[in-house]
């Protein structure tokens, strides 16, 4: 259909332009590597994992780290959009007969490419450090991570188009980042958390994602948690895209 074709056109164009500045991508790729190297020895000292070797710790914490990649990169992608809005680029694209969804989705997919590469690299380096591979589970896990990434990118775009100020976008993203991560169970297991935190986690899409990812990484593809994770993130990603597309129209009116 027309929308798919236009999304592809915007995606390829935006990717080509982004690749002209490889620095952002290279810096982005260094992130997962440094995490693994820094986290592994630290995680060994937590009471819940002290009994395990560092190789075992890798197996326990890599799924969480894959999920962590999404908000840290994707939540800030709206900043670039504010710059484009200010330069009149979005107004020009708006006048073409192409759909708003295609423009938003095409740019979002470009932002997801880095996330995808980060995910692959993370699993690769973790494997070297002792991660047991489950190909199917991990491939599905990458897809799940990308859906969460899309959710974050779309939400960031919608915020950017509404506030139209990159400092505000950065501030909002920074404020949301830590609660999202802490209330998801990836740094500290939620069983150790007080009741109110456990309740708060039920509205955090990342909590469902972490649960699903942990099952996927041990090959339990058909677990309920996996289904739940996909359901929650896909629905929210769809809503976020809808919100971003609407904000795109409102931004210029």
């Amino acid at each position, binding site marked *: 259909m027309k929308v798919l074709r*236009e999304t592809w056109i915007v995606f390829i*164009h935006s990717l080509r*332009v982004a690749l002209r*500045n490889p620095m952002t991508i290279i810096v982005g790729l260094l992130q997962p590597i440094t995490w693994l190297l820094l986290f592994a020895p630290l995680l060994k000292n937590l009471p819940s994992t002290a009994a395990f070797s560092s190789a075992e710790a890798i197996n326990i914490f890599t799924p969480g780290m894959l999920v962590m990649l999404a908000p840290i990169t994707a939540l800030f992608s709206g900043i670039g959009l504010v710059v484009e809005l200010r*330069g*009149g680029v979005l107004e*020009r694209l708006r006048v*073409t007969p*192409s759909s708003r969804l295609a423009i938003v989705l095409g740019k979002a997919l470009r932002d997801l490419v880095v996330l995808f590469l980060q995910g692959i690299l993370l699993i690769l380096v973790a494997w070297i450090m002792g991660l047991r591979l489950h190909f199917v589970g991990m491939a599905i896990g990458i897809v799940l991570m990308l859906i969460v990434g899309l959710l974050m990118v779309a939400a960031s775009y919608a915020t950017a188009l509404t506030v139209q100020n990159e400092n505000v976008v950065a501030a909002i993203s920074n404020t949301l980042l830590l609660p999202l991560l802490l209330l998801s169970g990836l740094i500290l297991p939620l069983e150790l958390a007080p009741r109110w935190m456990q309740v708060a986690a039920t509205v955090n899409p990342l909590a469902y994602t972490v649960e699903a990812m942990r099952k996927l990484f041990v090959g339990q593809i058909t677990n309920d948690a996996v289904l739940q994770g996909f359901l929650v993130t896909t629905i929210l990603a769809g809503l976020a895209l809808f919100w971003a597309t609407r904000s795109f129209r409102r931004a210029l*009116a």
Partner: protein
Amino acid sequence: MGIIETNGLKKQFTAGKDVVEALSGVDLSVSEGQIFGLLGPNGAGKTTLLRILTTVMKPDAGDATVVGHNVSTAPSAVRSAIGYVSQQGGAEVAATGRENLMLQARLYGLEPRTAKKRVNELLATFEMESIADRVVQTYSGGQQRRLDLAMGIVHRPTLLFLDEPTVGLDPQSRARVWDEVRMLHRNGTTVMLTTHYLDEADVLCDCIAIIDYGQIVAQDTPVGLKRKIAGDVVRLELGMNHHAYNIQDLFHSQLFVREIKQEQETLQLIVEEGEVALPIILRTLNENGLDIRTITLDRPSLDDVFLMQTGRSLREEIS
């Protein structure tokens, strides 16, 4: 029916507690094949009107038909038939000129091969072949404007909207843009441009509408508008004691004076024969003890038309 027809267009903006009425009932009719100019000071509503006509914005009231389609009910039909070059242009600075043009062409539905041919054609026409593969960041203002124009016509629209096409350009680049607009016109494209430059409106446009505070105050050819002033313009700058007299009374009885407009110490008289009127005016003012700092005699200009219609000088608005 014209290629653009509007009826009572209204648009309001709220900025905090203030409500700004950007357009308060705009009725416009633009014929096909013209270069049509919308002339007015900054803040008059030109960009708002353009945004509504290009379907970027929705009007609060009224309707508009562009190239036969209603902007509210058939926006995508409008968008396929028009081109729009906004004031900023909207080129992606991190991409090359060629990439910008290619994206634009593809989004208008051109197949990859056709798009490539068209892009090369445009690069040749606008003499941008040497800079086509450099990023737009490195372009000069004039080069960027040429790229913006090329992007606007990539799909050969019948109607092209230009918002302040020569703002910030040096005289050479300005003249180039004017030439390119004329070239488009010769090839059958209708062009509607907004401007606050009098010379641009005067020299380039077949028909001008003067807009002020969200309303069209006059519409005609440049010659037609000036002819309405019907006479020569005597402009005086009075001295400190101009408050002392009611100058209108002094000249009201004089038959050769068609119209008088005063704005602080600037006095504008529209007279029948400037050369004959001048000495009489000087004598009258002198006899009544009024100081005159400067005096000029001119054929009417668009600024005079603007002053006559709105009571303000466009030249002073923009300085």
